[in-house]
């Protein structure tokens, strides 16, 4: 592997390619600015508003006013951070966050921040900032955060924030970094290699049937839907909203109004369609906030569906896989995550209308297999607690 690394280190794009790409990107960025007069004006409007606000305030008030500073950051991050006062400690909801130490070397600053629960035991070794943190840096530098350690005796979790200049130059002396956190998860638990109590050989079996007018781009039954997907420019997928037939007829996917595709994964091939079981009642509980809600064979492929309760609050998630009699492990070929707002199942009578629940459906390539030779297993990851607060520290970058 060292040979691979050494050889790959010598692979670089040509200067002409980089320049050509930068010019093309510049042109696109400029075209967007010209086409979007509202967007082009927004920074100017924001600046005018900020100036108007600042005109009536002293610099200290402007620096301490979060609303003003937020607005200023959108227009001039460097000025916003310059005006922001140093604040090495922050306490909210009985939890203290403080800057422990900082070290600046050339283009990189490493800052250690600790969070301690002063009142309860909400912080533990599984504390996860749940992507709710924000790092504001002076212009032309970027930041990242990772959990380093947990001290059970003091109930303190330590994070490392790394700030680095984008161009490799020295960090701006006197520049300030603000690290903010709005919520975090704890009480994490993982359950792996868990057998699922499900007889795969006795599952319902469905197959798409074309209608009298030929094969449609979608299928709707009372048990499942098959819909075409499209890949968006940022490589996510969404449901195709409408399809135009050869004769000009436009078919809209109105029946999918109760579904929102949240994401998916596809191994080895592009996502072309999603087949989703209409969510049903509980088949069996899997873990805290994770429930098996559907299992069937569609066009020879095994579909297994789980519901993720309190998904946005506690981020429960999991994965299914099959174990064959010969010991082979078969992973899913694809999965689709979606939110469902409609009735749960055709006959269940459970009405989730308006509430919306999150699901994930896993699909296995089992067309040439006897499901009697397979067993379903799952790995599950849950969190017990979501703690909210408003923690924010600002520290100077000094060598």
């Amino acid at each position: 592997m060292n040979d691979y690394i050494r050889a790959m280190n010598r692979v670089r794009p040509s200067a002409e390619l980089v320049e050509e790409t930068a010019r093309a990107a510049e042109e696109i960025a400029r075209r967007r600015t010209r086409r979007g007069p509202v967007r082009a004006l927004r920074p100017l409007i924001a600046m005018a508003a900020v100036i108007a606000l600042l005109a009536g305030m002293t610099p200290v008030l402007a620096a301490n006013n979060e609303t003003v500073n937020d607005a200023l950051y959108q227009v001039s991050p460097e000025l916003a951070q310059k005006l922001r006062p140093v604040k090495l400690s922050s306490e909210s909801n009985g939890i203290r966050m403080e800057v422990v130490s900082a070290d600046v070397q050339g283009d990189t600053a490493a800052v250690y921040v600790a969070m301690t629960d002063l009142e309860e035991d909400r912080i533990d070794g599984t504390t996860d900032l749940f992507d709710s943190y924000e790092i504001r840096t002076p212009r032309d530098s970027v930041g990242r955060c990772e959990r380093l350690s947990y001290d059970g005796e003091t109930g303190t979790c330590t994070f490392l924030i790394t700030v680095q200049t984008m161009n490799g130059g020295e960090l701006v002396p006197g520049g300030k970094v603000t690290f903010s956190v709005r919520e975090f998860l704890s009480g994490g638990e993982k359950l792996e290699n868990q057998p699922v109590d499900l007889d795969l050989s006795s599952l319902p079996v469905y197959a798409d049937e074309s209608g009298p007018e030929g094969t449609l781009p979608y299928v709707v039954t009372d048990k499942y839907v098959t819909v075409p997907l499209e890949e968006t420019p940022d490589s996510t997928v969404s449901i195709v909203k409408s399809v135009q037939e050869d004769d000009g007829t436009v078919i809209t996917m109105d029946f999918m109004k109760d579904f929102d595709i949240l994401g998916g994964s596809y191994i080895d091939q592009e996502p072309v369609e999603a087949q989703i079981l209409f969510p049903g009642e509980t088949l069996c509980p899997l873990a805290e906030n994770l429930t098996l809600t559907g299992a069937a064979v569609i066009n020879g492929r095994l579909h297994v569906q789980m519901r993720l309760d309190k998904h946005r609050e506690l981020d429960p998630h999991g994965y299914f896989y099959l174990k064959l009699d010969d010991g082979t492990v078969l992973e899913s070929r694809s999965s689709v995550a979606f939110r469902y707002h409609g009735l749960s199942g055709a006959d269940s009578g459970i009405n989730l209308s308006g509430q919306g629940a999150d699901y994930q459906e896993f699909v296995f390539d089992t067309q040439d297999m006897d499901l009697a030779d397979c067993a379903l297993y799952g790995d599950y990851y849950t969190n017990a607690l979501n703690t909210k607060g408003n923690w924010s520290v600002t520290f100077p970058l000094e060598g």
Partner: protein
Amino acid sequence: MRDSRQCTAAEAEAVIARYADTVYRTAYAQTGSRMDADDVFQEVFLRYVKARPVFKNEEHRKAWLLRVTVNCARDVTGSLWARRRAPLTEDIPDEPQEETGLKEMLERLPPKYRWVIHLYYYEGYSCGEIARMMGLREGAVRTRLARGRQKLKELMEGEFACE
């Protein structure tokens, strides 16, 4: 760092400058061809400017770029045209010896292993980070990595640096 401003020309240039090598090497690792890597390189950054995604921090920006690079490169290696295309006799003039060996190795390694090998061994991501980046189960990444490593070992027939 929440980047809520639209992507200006200067910012696009800064991102290209920062991640040019990373994107290009990942594209080359997957396609094994400079010609294809050039196309993927342009496609990735033009998608970036068009999509103007919002990132919370630099980690997310890099992960986004790598994910799009792998997906674009996989489109190239998976296309019927790519599979049927005969190799050029002179893909790169004056190609260094080390790069010739790398190119030959990549061509012999099945495409489905290339990107995970590259992200793990060259970019230094853990299986969990790769799984999160690509929207896959961590176990799936581990399995693919193990199989790719075994395949690479067979190809290289030499001392192999393992974890």
